[in-house]
């Protein structure tokens, strides 16, 4: 048994070389034990088999600006299909010389989204900015005022259409979702039953059935002579669909609010409406922001389904390009491009939602 009386002041012993630095990292993370070492070797083998040919196809042998005919001759990736058709892929059938308008609308949307990322900006003016922004976007797309040539909604397509369907869809679905969530938690049996029925029905069926419904059944619901165009029908279906999922997300937030909050509001004498508006919802909505961003990501991905009811979102414009005999056979390149667009958008949104979750968890 020892008494360590003398404390070594000067000696700084370094850990063994095999434990730290690059070698140490490699040893612990790649080769710890025979099983891990085997895995590492197998993985490296696979990568070796796949990556070089892929790089050769995608970058070395590839053509970036050429004609379709030249592409057919070459073995490499035909990325030229993108620059040659990009305006159609992104904007669809929107009149060629007016395409600056959807471009500006998208820039406006992205600008607003970026600005909203910073939580310090979450104040009332931001909400107004969003309302104004959405209005301006609609105006830019539709035209008819301020000397802008009107462009029918049947000509809207491509990326602006995808963005419109998802952003507008989520924005409009949110109030409906909140109402449904409150309805589900209501003590009034009629209201509760209606809400539950709606939510379970919509969540239980695939989006495609709702899109079908919007496409063939909605026209039957309208009196004779009244028609609504394809895009609005799809938008309504997306709104109804998303609202049910938002309702469940918001319900989760409402459940997380301690009963004490409801009781405190009651004891001040606030009515149901005021309690919800001033006390409960502000807290609940803050809690559910991360899952709401997840919902936006889902809505964004789900808009791709409008392909099936022949709306020209960015997926369908791509397919149209592929059916052009000049560019046939390059599905891989075209789809990879669209996939990249989706991936980048969803990845950033995902990252943001994760970061937000961490921030909200640590410092409420």
């Amino acid at each position, binding site marked *: 048994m020892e008494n*360590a009386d003398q404390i070594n002041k000067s000696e*700084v012993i370094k*850990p063994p070389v095999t434990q730290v630095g690059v070698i140490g990292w490699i040893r612990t993370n790649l080769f710890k034990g025979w099983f891990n070492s085997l895995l590492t070797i197998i993985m490296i083998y696979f990568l070796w088999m796949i990556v070089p040919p892929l790089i050769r196809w995608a970058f070395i042998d590839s053509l970036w600006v050429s004609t379709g005919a030249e592409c057919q001759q070459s073995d490499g990736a035909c990325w030229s299909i993108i620059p040659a058709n990009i305006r159609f892929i992104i904007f669809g059938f929107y009149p060629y010389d007016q395409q600056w308008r959807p471009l500006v609308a998208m820039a406006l949307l992205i600008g607003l989204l970026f600005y909203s990322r910073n939580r310090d900006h979450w104040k009332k003016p931001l909400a107004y900015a969003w309302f104004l922004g959405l209005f301006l976007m609609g105006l830019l797309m539709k035209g008819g005022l301020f000397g802008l040539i009107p462009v029918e909604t049947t000509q809207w397509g491509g990326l602006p259409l995808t963005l419109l369907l998802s952003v507008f869809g989520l924005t409009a679905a949110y109030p409906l979702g909140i109402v449904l969530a409150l309805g589900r938690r209501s003590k009034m049996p009629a209201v509760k039953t209606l809400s539950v029925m709606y939510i379970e029905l919509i969540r239980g069926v695939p989006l495609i059935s709702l899109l079908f419904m919007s496409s063939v059944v909605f026209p039957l619901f309208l009196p004779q002579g009244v028609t609504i165009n394809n895009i609005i029908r799809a938008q309504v279906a997306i709104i109804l669909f998303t609202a049910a999922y938002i309702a469940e997300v918001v319900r989760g937030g409402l459940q997380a609010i301690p009963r004490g909050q409801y009781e405190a509001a009651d004891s001040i004498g606030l009515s149901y409406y005021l309690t919800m508006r001033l006390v409960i919802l502000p807290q609940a909505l803050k809690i559910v922001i991360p899952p709401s961003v997840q919902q936006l990501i889902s809505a964004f991905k789900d808009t791709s389904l409008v392909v099936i009811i022949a709306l020209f979102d960015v997926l369908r414009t791509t397919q149209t390009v592929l059916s052009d005999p000049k560019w046939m056979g390059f599905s891989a390149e075209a789809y990879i491009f669209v996939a990249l667009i989706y991936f980048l958008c969803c990845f950033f949104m995902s990252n943001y939602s994760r970061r937000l979750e961490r921030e909200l968890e640590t410092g409420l």
Partner: protein
Amino acid sequence: MGTKTSEKADNSLANDAIIEIIEMHKWFGDFHVLQGIDLTVRKQERIVICGPSGSGKSTLIRCINRLEEHQRGRIIVDGIELTDNIKNIEKVRTEVGMVFQHFNLFPHLTIVENLALGPIWVRKVPKAEAEETAMFYLEKVHIAEQARKYPGQLSGGQQQRVAIARSLCMNPKIMLFDEPTSALDPEMIKEVLDVMIELAQEGMTMIVVSHEMGFARSVAHQVLFMDFGKIVEGNTPQEFFENPQHERTKLFLSQILH
């Protein structure tokens, strides 16, 4: 806190070492968490380790049952040296019991099942016998009536006592305690310390990381003070509390004994 059992003239202390730590170093990456630890623990000896957080005291005892690996030096427990040899590690772990700050009872098993798990699966004991042993130790820690309940239904103090009983069911030669009362509400600390004192009185070898100085005074043979990865000072409780040698020890004692 009961009779002092830590007289230096206590002749019941066996003289052979059961734990030997020789020039042990441990790094977490570049951080030198344990610097040249030399420690010998004899059979039936009871040691209390204290020190500021980050001093490495938990890491030290976790190295003894290989929950943490050391990079340099030697650790020998009951004649078995701790290396990468998994068989030896498992043997050591059956001889060394550990009680955690957050109890770590298995929530999906009843109390009895928690205790019988080790004997059944490690010592290959028939179920009836394992449950008998379990009930025996549950009585020992005064909690036999909760046998069929689940951990979620027990208070913190009760859970910790069950955790102690669970370790005892493996008949360990050494018991390690990692801040056993730090996560308990004040009114439950005593029930756990009482069990630990009874254990001490029966002659168990114990290493306890704790700030419960009353416990140290009444039961420990040695109190060690650790700081920045080194054992700064160690002495009998009386000497330790009345004549601390180093400045850092004095500073620490003044902070926790108010």
